[in-house]
């Protein structure tokens, strides 16, 4: 073919070839930030391009992912869960076995190395469930960087063990008392810090959200999950799975899991959002299921806003999914029809937690429990020769006290 540019009606090419130079995933993404941050985002973009062209960068990151994180994480057959569901074979991609207990560390090590390449020794981060905060504190301790983590005071309460662990590793945890005192407010405060510190500070965003180039960088660092899963499926089954399921808040574990499968049209991809208490506004945090396109935290994506563009209150039992927006690439995948997005409720997620605890001997994070809840129901409807892989994004130790409280169990 000798065409130069595609005709307007021509297919756009593989879905994986995003974002463009302006950080667009189709119509989504972009960079809606105060001018004060523009130069730093351009610097980050250049540093990232440099890094991925430098074999030494990949070598250093891969070495850390192997010896420090413990990658590759296994692909485990969930035998008793499969038997219970009575349908498709269920497998867990064990991100919960990563150092610090969740996939978040894949990104913080990558961004920590980038920060050092830019000569920035002060790191800020936001955290919801605390997993990203812990992973950032861990990377900073390993690299000898200063670390400040913003965390909504409601989440400080819900995720106390993670707060303690961050402090053990020398991070300063700053509780955020504004707004809903959750993840969204923690991001606001981190951005405000960055407005005044941008010349010596790198902001390690924890999900595939925020202004360009963050959604791309975080997706790329998390894609190690999906790349390993593709290899493992080929080796263990001689083929790709039929379905891949992941939970979606901001959407980093799902983006990393899905991205290497995106151009394999035969693999069904399902993102599970937080359905909370009900489908009523304010009762859930399911941006892709119930939201509409809008701008939040620097990018255009599906968001939960009122008609004036004010961010809506959201709810989820799981702090990591309690966010009124979602990464722009998920919005792109949704509108392209490539990934199905659905939601499950707080109580379904809690039931899935119990189920996996009792039948598989694994305490999954409450975030992950959303993906499991949907997957078990779906597996029951699928034939036994189909393979369903769940991204088991994190372990649930952090949630144990909160679950006990919700269940009315008395500690000790």
């Amino acid at each position, binding site marked *: 073919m000798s065409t130069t540019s595609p005709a307007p009606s021509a297919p756009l090419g593989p879905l994986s070839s995003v974002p463009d130079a302006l950080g667009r995933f189709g119509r989504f993404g972009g960079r809606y930030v105060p*001018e004060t941050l523009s130069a730093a985002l351009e610097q980050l973009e250049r540093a990232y391009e440099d890094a991925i062209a430098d074999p030494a960068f990949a070598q250093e990151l891969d070495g850390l992912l192997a010896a420090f994180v413990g990658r590759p994480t296994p692909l485990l057959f969930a035998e008793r869960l499969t038997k219970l569901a009575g349908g498709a074979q269920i497998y867990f991609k064990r991100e919960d076995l990563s150092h610090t207990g969740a996939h978040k560390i894949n990104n913080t090590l990558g961004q920590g190395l980038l920060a050092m390449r830019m000569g920035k020794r002060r790191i800020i981060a936001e955290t919801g469930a605390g997993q990203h905060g812990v992973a950032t504190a861990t990377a900073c301790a390993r690299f000898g960087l200063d670390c400040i983590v913003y965390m909504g005071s409601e989440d400080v309460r819900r995720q106390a063990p993670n707060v303690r662990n961050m402090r053990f590793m020398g991070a300063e945890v700053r509780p955020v008392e504004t707004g809903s005192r959750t993840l969204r407010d923690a991001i606001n405060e981190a951005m405000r810090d960055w407005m005044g510190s941008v010349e010596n500070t790198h902001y390690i965003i924890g999900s595939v959200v925020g202004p360009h180039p963050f959604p791309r960088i975080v997706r790329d660092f998390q894609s190690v999950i999906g790349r390993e899963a593709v290899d493992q499926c080929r080796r263990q089954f001689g083929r790709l799975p039929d379905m891949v399921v992941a939970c979606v808040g901001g959407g980093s574990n799902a983006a990393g899991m899905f991205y290497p499968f995106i151009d394999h049209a035969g693999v069904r991809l399902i993102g599970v959002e937080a359905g909370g208490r009900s489908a009523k506004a304010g009762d859930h945090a399911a941006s892709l299921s119930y939201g509409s396109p*809008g*701008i939040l935290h620097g990018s255009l994506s599906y968001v939960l806003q009122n008609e004036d563009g004010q961010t809506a209150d959201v709810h989820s039992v799981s702090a990591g999914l309690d966010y009124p927006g979602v990464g722009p690439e998920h919005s792109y995948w949704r509108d392209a029809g490539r990934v199905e997005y659905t939601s499950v409720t707080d109580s379904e997620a809690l039931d899935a937690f119990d189920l996996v605890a009792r039948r598989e001997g694994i305490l999954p994070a409450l975030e992950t429990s959303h993906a499991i809840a949907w997957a078990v129901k779906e597996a029951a409807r699928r034939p036994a020769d189909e393979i369903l892989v769940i991204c088991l994004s994190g372990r649930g130790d952090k949630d144990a006290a909160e679950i006990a409280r919700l269940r009315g169990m008395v500690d000790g």
Partner: protein
Amino acid sequence: MEKTMPSGTASIAAVFAANREQQRKALAPFVTAGDPDVDTTVAILEAIDRAGASLCELGVPYSDPIADGAVIQASYTRALDNGMTIEALFATVKRAAAKVRMPILAMASYSIIFRRGIDRFVADAKAAGLAGFVVPDLPVEESDDLDAACRSAGLALVRLVTPTTPPDRAEAIARRSTGFLYCVSVAGVTGARTDLPAGLIDRVKWLRTKTDVPILVGFGISTPEQAKAVAAVADGVIVGSALVRHLAEAGSKPREELVRGVEDYVGKLAAAVGTSC
């Protein structure tokens, strides 16, 4: 309704032309729409106008203002808690614009403009009597659609340059700014600061050599002395958090007393700015 006065970008240009003629500099106070309520906002806008402000920036309350410090955030939260809406904003502007001489610009997050729809937001703003916009989270690369809508409506789209903006980029931003250019004094969020940042005066002088568009300096300016020093090199100053805090502290006072306090404070700033040519 017939209006003899110019509107939109032209009304801003007329203010700077008149200032030049009278050898005055511009004071542009910032207040939040609907804090504590819309009637008070209208009264405050009238007081600011009487006190000698050249322009006014009306903050549109937003739930997640990442460029704002604690004072303006709290003000936005109060306004939203009191039920401020975009419909109410335009109604407030309409009431105020009929009574004041100074052009009113809206300081609005792009989240809010985008949600309503760019064309609809701009049309509603023009009908209400707004002269233009400052959109603190819309960098030049993302601004083509709003820019086109503003140009065709004759409204100003004021751009911002900051201490982290590289020189080439600052020139490009200045070229695209209409109404005036907003020179942000510090890398950081809004909020009163004790000292003027080092290098600010030189930065404004440099910008002055690069653009003919009027330059207003904002962020961190709270005292008549600071305002005077900055106005000596710029075309004017913007005072935001200091005034908003003043209003917050006076919040429980009767409205007349509150408005008198604002008029006094703005009058002092306007006098300092006015005599700095």
